């Protein structure tokens, strides 16, 4: 029986290089002309206005991790502690972006892209601080704890529910659909790479394998999101920190084995950040753009996703969660992304200009430690990526909940989120990456505009926090401390009770 025409069209669209090129071109226009200037300007503005909070309060970021969990009137824990919030956000950040994303950045933008990733992590640290502080300030008390995020501060801080709804819709398209597709795509690429199939000779087998992996991933996702088997999500999430540590250890081993090359690698990163490498098309602008895009995909600074998770934590001052999330950005980029960059730059001399994202990292590890690392990397990526798929689903669920509580809408969303994983597994990686980049730019733009408008509140909170620090106190914020603030629901004495 022939395939249905509409279904064949969808199939062709997902695997068409022309579609990938069109998406890439539109994304570059959006990023080059609008998103990139706004991301840099907002980051620099927040850095200046906060007095470089991301550097100045670095010791306090570490100290905040030791804060005890808050308790209710019966002495029971109200929510997760600051350290738990840090590990959860770090685990959700560490994923495909740190392994495949960095490889793609080096392939497209050269070693210099790594310098721009670092720079944007530092500048974006200030944006991350502001968005997560605002996420805490405007959080709401839900049935199972706190909830919040950009949609909430747009509604309650800016008084623009309509903007919150638009943001929530874009987040749903970005995270559970675009980013989850990307995670599934990378899992498929890693597994096909690990089993040693050749892209040209075994094309038919790779396609069949992609479908089989896609169906398996979609079924696993559906089992979790339809509420049947939450244990899968719990097991995956509990393994993620161990996988992240294992990956960092692998990277340290590779760097140690090639320690003599380290000065050369640093030299490449700094010199190529400003000097045009002939292997890269598009010049310095492309190096910068690639570094910023891949950096943002990985650390999510200013994107508007971290405040959704950060708002669920229970802390005594909103600034504390801002600091914890900034530390998360540093951990993600300066440690995990750097590990990937060093693995590749030490072991794959012709990575720049080559094709294939995660395959470059696989090749790097195989060159240094042997082919057995292909299977290990496949396991690590599977767990990191699948936990991100589940995390992305919950981001989407929270934002759908902001828009409507209609159960039919939620059922349709669950179904589409599962099918997005299937689609991502079988689509061409260029289509998926370019679509994700474009939609991520729109999401970041909306969030950055909102946090720029609300930044006076975050700055006032920072002043309140530092004043208490100067007096030698453990900072505590109550809504009554700033009576002029509107739209605040939490931050009563019962919300900041410590053990």
């Amino acid at each position, binding site marked *: 029986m022939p395939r249905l025409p509409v279904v064949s069209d969808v199939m062709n669209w997902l695997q068409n290089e022309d579609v990938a090129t069109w998406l890439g071109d539109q994304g570059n226009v959006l990023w080059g002309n609008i998103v990139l200037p706004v991301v840099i300007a907002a980051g620099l503005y927040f850095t200046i206005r906060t007095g470089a909070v991301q550097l100045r309060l670095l010791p306090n970021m570490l100290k905040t991790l030791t804060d005890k969990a808050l308790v209710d009137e019966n002495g029971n824990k109200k929510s997760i502690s600051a350290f738990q919030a840090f590990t959860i956000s770090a685990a959700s950040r560490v994923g495909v972006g740190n392994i495949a994303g960095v490889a793609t950045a080096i392939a497209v933008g050269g070693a210099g892209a790594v310098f721009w990733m670092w720079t944007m992590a530092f500048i974006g640290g200030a944006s991350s601080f502001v968005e997560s502080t605002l996420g805490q300030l405007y959080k709401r008390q839900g049935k199972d704890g706190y909830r919040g995020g950009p949609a909430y501060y747009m509604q309650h801080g800016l008084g623009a529910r*309509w903007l919150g709804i638009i943001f929530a819709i874009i987040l749903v398209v970005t995270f559970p659909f675009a980013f989850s597709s990307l995670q599934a795509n990378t899992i498929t690429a890693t597994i096909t790479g690990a089993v040693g199939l050749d892209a040209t000779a075994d094309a038919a087998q790779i396609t069949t394998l992609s*479908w*089989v992996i896609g*169906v398996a991933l979609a*079924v696993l996702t559906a089992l979790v999101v339809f509420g049947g088997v939450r244990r899968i999500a719990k097991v995956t999430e509990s393994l993620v920190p161990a996988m992240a540590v294992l990956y960092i250890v692998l990277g340290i081993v590779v760097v140690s084995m090639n320690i003599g090359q380290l000065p050369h690698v640093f030299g490449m990163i700094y010199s190529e950040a400003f000097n045009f490498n002939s292997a890269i098309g598009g010049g310095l602008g492309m190096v910068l753009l690639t570094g910023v895009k891949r950096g943002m995909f990985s650390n999510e600074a200013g994107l508007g996703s971290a405040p959704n998770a950060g708002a669920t934590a229970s802390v005594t001052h909103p600034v504390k969660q801002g600091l914890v999330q900034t530390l998360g950005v540093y951990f993600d980029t300066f440690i995990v992304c750097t590990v990937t960059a060093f693995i590749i730059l030490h072991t794959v001399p012709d990575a720049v200009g080559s094709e294939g994202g995660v395959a470059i990292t696989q090749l790097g590890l195989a060159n240094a430690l042997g082919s057995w690392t292909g299977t290990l990397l496949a396991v690590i990526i599977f767990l990191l990526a699948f936990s991100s798929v589940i995390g992305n689903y919950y981001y989407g669920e929270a934002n759908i909940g902001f828009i409507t509580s209609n159960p039919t809408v939620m059922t349709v969303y669950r179904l589409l989120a599962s099918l997005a994983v*299937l689609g991502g597994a*079988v689509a061409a990686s260029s289509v998926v990456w370019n679509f994700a980049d474009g939609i991520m730019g729109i999401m970041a733009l909306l969030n950055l505009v909102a946090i720029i408008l609300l930044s006076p509140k975050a700055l006032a909170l920072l002043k309140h926090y530092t004043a208490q620090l100067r007096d030698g106190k453990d900072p505590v914020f109550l809504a009554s401390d700033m009576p002029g603030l509107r739209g605040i629901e939490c931050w009563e004495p019962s919300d900041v009770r410590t053990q």
Partner: protein
Amino acid sequence: MLGAIGRAHAVTLRRNNRASASSPGQLPELPGALRVARWWWVVLGLVFAGFAGKLLLDEFSAQRNATTLLFAGLLCAAGIAVAFLASGLWRTDRRARSHLTWLGLILALPLFLRFGRYSLLALLVLVGVLLLWTPSSIKYFRALHRR
């Protein structure tokens, strides 16, 4: 416009609340579509398992191909899952409909898109999904949810 969506949503919620408050809790008789769906899904489970068995037999008598074996394994797993979830329809499990719906759609899409010669099987799966969502089935499951 978005304000209108919010108001419409509030009206829907109130209507749902009224409906659940006035429900007598009496489960209606099993509709014909669901009677058919019960058997339909059991047969589908067997068909999936049958296809898997045939593929495995063909493979063992010819040169072994890892991806075909994987595909056969997937069909076999699908058959077991469909049969297990179909048993939920017999036990009037409220979640059986949503589980069979997502599983049916996830299985039908690849059969259409990649494995063209299994398109008929995909169509049968989609008919099975539709049987779960006929007006009478929706009414039945709504009553089941209220109990």
